[in-house]
């Protein structure tokens, strides 16, 4: 298992060593968000709105404050007014004032579960009892949750001052539509009219949740000197720092965020919910305060991915060459605008060569929690529609759906939708590997169907810092700032050890707090192994240069006569030629050659490359119940080069299964009262082990020439194709097109019956 797979070029890249944090995690010792305790800590609790939309006339906390054991109470009035605040927020969210009001409502509650008051007390039981003593006078307002309902002219408005951005003329009346964006090329209408075959259809899907198993939790202490310590699990401690500091109007350097182990995020932990509330409670109480969400809070009040209504018209010539795509999608953003509509647009048709397209995106607000990023945020919804239409079009033309994609796939040099040419991408290689795979030609039995789809995700680079320090005994420490959400410590250790020419086991990796290492953007955008990896490699190279100079000093030779190979300095000229010095030798004499040896590197690379994935799925549909089960699943992906192949496969398998859940089971179910009917794992049914077969992960390694070890991002794109892949398989098994997710047994059964 541990043998290098490319002995000729690398010693360690491509091997599968045990992750550095592994033993702590299989023995229960790793400290996750809800595990942390501070001395003399209070337990907090949050009062959440039972109404999806209401004006808060008053909040009376007197009785709660009088309860013995209650030490602090916070409401929206305790938050600084943020109307004019501007903040650099990475990809986390939009407007800082929206984010603050999502942590604690001001004036109105906008969804069931919206926080509006919080208590800190000497025990959880007292905190909960105190919540029951808070009197809130609500003026209940009409609500709206569905996308098309929220777009209606007579829909209840979340904000009287929201005017749709991006229209040709500024609208006269406010609405729930926050934004419209459009990108066009060529003459779509004319091309559709002259196409040999077209498909036009509407596709819908409800919001879904990221479904991380670890609920949000934090401990915050606002110390007497005005500085704050925050312990929490998140996808980025620096992101938490900037959001907390900005919302609370304190200096960024006064907020220190300690990253705890993170129990899953998938984009959902790129934002904050609890930290500013715990901070304000702590400030009032003068003690550390812990806040935790329970699972119902997580569902009701943390970010679902947008639901969508997508219309597609797709046209091709008789040979299957795509000539035009008209895509209009509407995404539900919950209570405030975000980034996903833009991401949806650039993910829509850019993986095919299409001369004429018109892609229009609408972002729609409604009385649901503020949406949060979910793995390739914005891509799966529009991809489901486009790929489903493409499968129908291929069927209409009598062309194999993989051949249809091979005819139209983008290749290096073609243009992306965001206006730069594609670099060394491997979409065609993925499609050809899928075509040649035995899965694609395996026979199918009765009630079985096979589906395929293909997808693109942009990936990201972004700023990262890492340092490499040499211990007095020659041991090597990598210090970085990106939470390890799926094995990234292992990939950092591999890249550092590969660069330095030493053993994997000689490197330790620390995820440092915000006071201990320079800035890194959060773990997200499939960027960490790529961008932070570059910083680690660069810092390791600098450390090699320092050690060569130290060796030159010890040998009394020119640094040009010191080579670095196999983890040691080698003298190549002068009287010491042929001698070597190990890292340990050099470290032992560091004090006499210039002091401690370390280097920090900060990078901001934009030479990342996108990810592509092609999935094949077989389903069995039970004709008596309409239940679809996954019989076989194979995922192909252009992964660049896999640093630790097991964790790359893991991303592909995990992403595929999240997508299978999205396709078959998962949905936010709002009832007529605007309340979530399924805020628990029993009714929000995520895939379990018995639902699934093995997920065959086929890595297509086409290295990124801009990364020393060829890394492309791998984490996000695998969630994109399963929606259309599974729907295609069910459509083929039943003979009925599947255009509305999730494909629950009752829906499939109904479609089968209506066809019969």
């Amino acid at each position: 298992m541990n043998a290098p797979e490319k002995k000729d070029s690398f010693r360690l890249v491509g091997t599968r060593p045990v992750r550095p944090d592994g033993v702590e995690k299989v023995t229960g010792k790793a400290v996750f968000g809800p595990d942390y305790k501070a001395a003399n800590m209070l337990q907090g609790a949050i009062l959440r709105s039972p109404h999806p939309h209401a004006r808060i006339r008053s909040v009376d906390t007197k009785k709660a404050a009088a309860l013995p054991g209650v030490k602090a109470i916070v409401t929206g009035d305790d938050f600084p007014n943020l109307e004019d605040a501007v903040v650099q927020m990475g990809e986390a969210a939009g407007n800082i004032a929206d984010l603050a009001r999502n942590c604690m409502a001001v004036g109105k509650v906008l969804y069931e579960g919206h926080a509006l008051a919080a208590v800190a007390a000497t025990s959880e039981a007292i905190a909960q009892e105190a919540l029951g003593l808070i009197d809130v006078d609500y003026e209940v307002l009409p609500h709206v949750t569905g996308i098309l309902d929220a777009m209606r002219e007579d829909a209840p408005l979340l904000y009287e001052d929201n005017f749709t951005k991006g229209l040709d003329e500024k609208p006269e009346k406010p609405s729930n539509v926050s934004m419209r964006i459009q990108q066009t090329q060529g003459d779509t209408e004319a091309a559709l009219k002259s196409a040999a075959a077209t498909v036009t259809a509407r596709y819908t899907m409800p919001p879904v949740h990221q479904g991380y198993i670890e609920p949000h939790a934090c401990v915050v202490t606002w110390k007497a000197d005005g500085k704050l310590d925050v312990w929490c699990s998140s996808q980025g401690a620096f992101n938490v720092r900037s959001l907390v500091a900005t919302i609370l109007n304190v200096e960024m350097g006064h907020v220190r965020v300690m990253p705890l182990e993170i129990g899953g995020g998938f984009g959902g932990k790129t934002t904050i919910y609890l930290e500013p509330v715990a901070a304000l409670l702590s400030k009032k109480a003068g003690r550390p305060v812990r806040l935790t969400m329970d699972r119902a809070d997580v569902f009701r009040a943390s970010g679902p991915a947008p639901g969508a209504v997508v219309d597609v018209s797709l046209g091709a010539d008789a040979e299957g060459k795509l000539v035009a795509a008209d895509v209009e999608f509407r995404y539900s953003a919950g209570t405030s605008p975000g980034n996903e509509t833009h991401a949806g647009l650039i993910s829509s048709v850019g993986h095919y060569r299409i001369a004429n397209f018109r892609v229009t995106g609408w972002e729609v607000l409604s009385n649901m929690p503020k949406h949060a990023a979910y793995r390739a945020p914005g891509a799966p919804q529009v991809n489901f529609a486009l790929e489903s239409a493409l499968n129908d079009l291929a069927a209409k033309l009598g062309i194999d759906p993989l051949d249809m994609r091979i005819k139209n796939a983008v290749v290096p040099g073609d243009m992306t939708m965001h206006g730069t040419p594609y670099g060394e991408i491997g979409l065609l290689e993925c499609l050809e590997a899928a075509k040649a795979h035995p899965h694609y030609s395996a026979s199918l039995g009765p009630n079985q169907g096979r589906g395929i789809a293909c997808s693109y995700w942009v990936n990201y680079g972004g700023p990262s810092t890492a340092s490499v320090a040499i211990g007095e005994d020659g041991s090597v420490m990598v210090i970085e700032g990106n939470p390890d959400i799926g094995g990234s410590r292992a990939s950092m250790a591999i890249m550092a050890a590969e660069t330095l020419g030493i053993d994997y086991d000689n490197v330790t990796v620390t995820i440092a707090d915000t006071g201990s290492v320079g800035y890194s953007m959060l773990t997200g955008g499939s960027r960490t192994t790529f961008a932070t990896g570059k910083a680690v490699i660069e810092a390791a190279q600098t450390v090699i240069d320092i050690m060569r100079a130290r060796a030159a000093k010890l040998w009394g030779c020119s640094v040009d006569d010191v080579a670095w190979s196999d983890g040691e300095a080698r003298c190549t000229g002068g009287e010491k030629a042929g001698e070597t010095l190990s890292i340990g030798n050099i470290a032992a004499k560091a004090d006499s050659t210039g002091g401690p040896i370390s280097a920090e590197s900060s990078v901001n690379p934009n030479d990342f490359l996108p990810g592509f994935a092609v999935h094949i799925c077989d389903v069995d549909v039970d004709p008596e119940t309409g239940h679809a089960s996954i019989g076989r699943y194979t995922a192909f992906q252009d992964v660049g080069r896999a640093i630790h192949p097991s964790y790359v496969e893991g991303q592909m398998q995990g992403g595929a299964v999240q997508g299978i859940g999205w396709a078959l089971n998962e949905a936010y179910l709002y009832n007529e009262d605007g309340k979530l009917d399924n805020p628990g794992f029993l009714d929000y049914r995520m895939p379990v082990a018995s639902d699934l077969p093995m997920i065959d992960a086929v890595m297509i390694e086409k290295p990124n020439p801009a990364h020393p070890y060829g890394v492309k991002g791998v984490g996000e794109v695998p969630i994109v194709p399963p929606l259309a892949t599974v729907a295609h398989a069910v459509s083929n098994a039943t003979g009925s097109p599947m255009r509305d997710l999730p494909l629950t047994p009752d829906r499939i059964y109904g479609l089968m019956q209506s066809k019969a």
Partner: protein
Amino acid sequence: MSKLHVTTSVNGDEREFLCGPGETLLDVLRDELDMTGTKEGCGSGDCGACTIMLDGEMVCSCLVMAAEAQGRVIGTIEGVAEGSELHPVQRTFLDHAALQCGFCTPGFIVAAKALLDRNPDPTETEVRYWLAGNLCRCTGYDKIIRAVMDAAAELRQERTPA
């Protein structure tokens, strides 16, 4: 409200604690006994992150009242390894990269060990159904299933540890 005094055995050690009548065994393990290896993912018995052994039976500790632990024998993730010697399931989880975030992992390992203690030669289907009460959102279960099958083979001495 007066507290209940409970004496119980946890991973072979006698432990005493005071608990409220509404507290769960999971609350006490995590907050009173500082054994945070057992996780809370849902509090309703749907995710398996809080899986422990109670008198030899696999249970969700969020569904057991703390007071019920009186006189019982509890096994948690902290007791699966013998000192620094990992149980084969723990080792195969590492070898197969069967964890990504690692939050569900303690529950899976306790559950998998419970399976292998009673059935040393499970089929893949049996493993999948036995673990169907444990949610993992990261891995898609593939590598978890392989790790458990591999640990079973090792325990049957059909393979030697890597």
